[in-house]
């Protein structure tokens, strides 16, 4: 049922955590490295693979270096927050549950227009795609909803439903402010108090100060490390370097250091690593006897 509107950003997070915890999700913390989206978190990228059920929710600070605007554009940031929920297998009433979560954070749905607008999601770097929607609230995109069909190049069955809330957008809406910078984060602190200086700094780094030759060198080294570790069966350490490669690529792109042809080729290199990681993970889980399956040994 609709609750009173949350007054702060952190209260929205608390309510989402409570809601999805009550739905039986494992509540996780963000991944420790730089990622472009919650999908890169192993809790999504790996757990969607294979037959084991998995329900989890977490906040993911998401870095998109080229989206920064020095804090001047009201809704464009190089570092924003996603609230990510993955449900595997996707329950038949998954959309009802999602709508219920919106009520839980204080949106009286009967007084709004909620719309599911078709969206085919694809991550060329992760070799992943799915079908679903952008969810619109009164014309504003607030969530990305995807039924994963493939990840790391592997067909998925059972299918995971991935719900990605754009929390800043939702918070702006609930607080009636037009700029993310004006969001009330806690009772006495705004987004600007906490992050504006950093946002501007990162933009200077991403667009002007990052060291392209050094980054190219890093990419090569990280790639070598990823392949070496994954071939050695060290799935998570190897994947760490895949994610690093992806972020270095994003930095190079923001810097304008990657040409159109290089871009395609570099994405293909990351995708190849992601595929390797997915394969290594699946092999490992199979060897463990898929312990999270009902009746499994649970020795994960």
């Amino acid at each position, binding site marked *: 049922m609709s609750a009173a509107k949350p007054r702060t950003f952190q209260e929205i997070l608390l309510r989402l955590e409570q809601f999805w915890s009550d739905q039986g999700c494992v509540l996780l913390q963000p991944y420790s490295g730089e990622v472009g989206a919650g999908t890169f978190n192993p809790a999504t990228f790996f757990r969607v693979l294979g037959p084991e059920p998995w329900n989890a929710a977490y906040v993911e600070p998401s870095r998109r270096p080229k989206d920064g605007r020095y804090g001047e554009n009201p809704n464009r940031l190089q570092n924003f927050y996603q609230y990510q929920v993955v449900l595997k297998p996707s329950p038949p009433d998954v*959309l009802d549950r999602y709508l219920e979560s919106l009520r839980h954070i204080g949106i009286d749905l*009967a*007084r*709004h*227009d*909620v719309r599911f607008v078709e969206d085919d999601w694809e991550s060329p770097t992760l070799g992943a795609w799915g079908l679903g929607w952008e969810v619109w609230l009164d014309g504003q995109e607030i969530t990305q909803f995807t039924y994963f069909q493939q990840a790391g190049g592997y067909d998925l*069955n059972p*299918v995971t439903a991935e719900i990605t809330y754009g929390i800043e957008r939702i918070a702006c809406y609930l607080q009636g402010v037009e700029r993310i910078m004006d969001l009330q984060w806690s009772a006495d602190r705004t987004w600007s108090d906490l992050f504006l200086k950093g946002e501007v700094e990162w933009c200077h780094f991403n667009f002007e100060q990052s060291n392209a030759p050094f980054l190219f060198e890093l990419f090569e080294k990280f790639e070598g490390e990823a392949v070496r570790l994954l071939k050695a069966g060290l799935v998570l350490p190897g994947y760490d370097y895949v994610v690093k490669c992806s972020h270095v690529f994003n930095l190079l792109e923001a810097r304008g250091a990657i040409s159109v042809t290089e871009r395609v080729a570099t994405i293909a290199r990351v995708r190849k690593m992601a595929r390797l990681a997915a394969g290594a993970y699946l092999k490992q889980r199979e060897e463990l006897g898929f312990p999270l399956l009902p009746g499994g040994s649970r020795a994960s």
Partner: protein
Amino acid sequence: MPRDVLLEVGCEELPASFLSPALADLERLAVDGLAEARLAHGPVRAMGTPRRLALLVEAVADRQEDRVREVTGPAVKVAYDAAGNPTNAAKGFAKGAGIAVEALERTATPKGEYLLARVQDVGRSAAEVLPGLLGASVLALKFPKTMHWNGAGRFARPVRWLVALHGEEVLAVEAFGIVAGRRTRGHRIHAPDWVDLARPRDYVSALRERVVMVESSERRGAIESELTRAAATVGGTPIRDEELLDEVTNLVEWPEAVVGSFDERHLSLPRPVVVTAMKAHQRYFALERPDRSLLPNFVMIRSGRGEGAEEIRRGTQAVLRARLEDARFYWDNDRKAGLEARVESLAGIVWHERLGTIRDRVKRIEQLVEELARTLAPKSRSLAARAAHLCKADLASEMVRSGKEFATLQGIVGAEYAAAAGEPPAVVQAIREHYLPQGPSDPLPESMEGILVSLADRLEALVGGFRAGLEVTGSQDPYGLRRAGNGVVRILVEKRLRLDVMATAAWLDGIFEKAGITKAPSTVEFGTFWGQRVASALEEAGIRHDTADAAIAVRPGDPLDVMARARAIDGIRESPDFEGLMTGYRRVANLLRSAPPGEIPAGDHPMAERAENFGAKAEADLHLETKMARQAVETYLQAAEPDYGAALRHLLGLRPAIDAFFEAVMVMDEDPGTRKRRLGLLAAVRGTFLRIADLSAI
């Protein structure tokens, strides 16, 4: 007693563009399935919303119609032994057909006499037949893109429930791991509870009570009246947009209008920019005043009803405000930068890795426009060249480069920038028009300047595409080359412009060559590709297929000319002499084809022989007739408007001379000199025909 049938596929929100085709398919599949199953029925209606595809069939018969089926069995000669007793073959056949051996009949066929069984099929009950039929119809639906969600089948989006009723009974339909029942759901937000349907005819009204207008036509009508009503509250009318209306119809279950407004100062932006900001992502309808000027208002169609209009208005206005402010930001920056600067920055946008940047491409378009104007329209040369110079400038504008909805305004927004910069109206118009036509029913550019830039734009892309070895085969047209080719043909034919595209392509090839752009290997030659484009235009124009081939084979370059020659051929094909002429012509062509190489002069024959050299009269006659025909044909062809009909009629007159020649003369004479002379004469005959067409294609 006949009973109504209802099928409902309850799903998660389908893409708007999938809905109408799926409903049409569902209706067709059901009608075909019922006919196949011999189930008599009344009217069939498919209806649906983003969340449901439904089928309502009135008065479906309780049983299939009985029928008698004729089954042919073994040959009579193996069916009975010498004593006339049925063999095992006959007994087995009778058993399989379910009738007594004595009841077998005989049927005469071209292969002899065979046994025939008349099998009585007793109709099964509708309740038995319908589940399979309806299930198969659902599973046969096709979508541009499908997914799976529970491993039990694919659909556009997950299917969550099925309703299948036959009168008051539930039909045992099963699909996607779901067993059909009588429960459906209303609007996702306003009436989410499950509800039992007693009988099919309650369907539409039960849903209406639950905030779902299930029939698309009703929804579309409701949107139209909502739009008019809402627009009137701010003194305007909605700008008619069928495409948007269709889309919104398939986005909502219950339409209700909400009017919003935006800051009046945004009205100083170009109208297409403002309208696009409303339409492209937001699917809002733009409004205009009685004097047709844009109002600072819009109508958004919500899905649902009742409270909340104020909240929705506030939300929708905020999104539009952000979009319009983006547009204003781009508009101001772009004008400040100036068009020339944008043209220069096209050097930073790669067109194709082999073909350079868009700046390079624009330079080639400029050169080609000048070349085309020289013959087609000298007076338009300078303005067309200016338009060509500016035609892609908007691709470097922030408005288009933003990648937002305004990217769709290329050309249109370029014209707006040119107008704002004080460029002459003809230049502005040419920039706006040069992307036309995009498709077969699109309008063409109207101004000569627009035509020149459009032609040059397409030809540059085509010739460049072939240089770069881009793919043109297969059912896809990934680089739009076929579309570009069709556009060139349409412009030349409909605007009645004479242009030899093959020669122009060769000229352009020289430009690419000079720029050091080498030719990549490609599987198809430009000439073949171009011939196919012209052929498909001729087919559209109703010209016979082989006539088109005959006309294209000799000179495909100028589509207007090919069209005229093809029409002339179609014109004489009904003439009584035509078949006879063709017989003669085929003999000429076949003989030449089978003659040893080196015996006939390549190409056309000069006909320098003197008449006295001919031994036979028939040979001398054909020589003379051909000579006269050649002169006549050249006269007809060199007129300002070549008269191919008259030229062909003249060629029809060659028939008696050809016939007499073959009657009297042995071409492959033993004397090499005679043989060569006669083959040369036939080559001249053929060469005369080839001035118009290669009739051997017919």
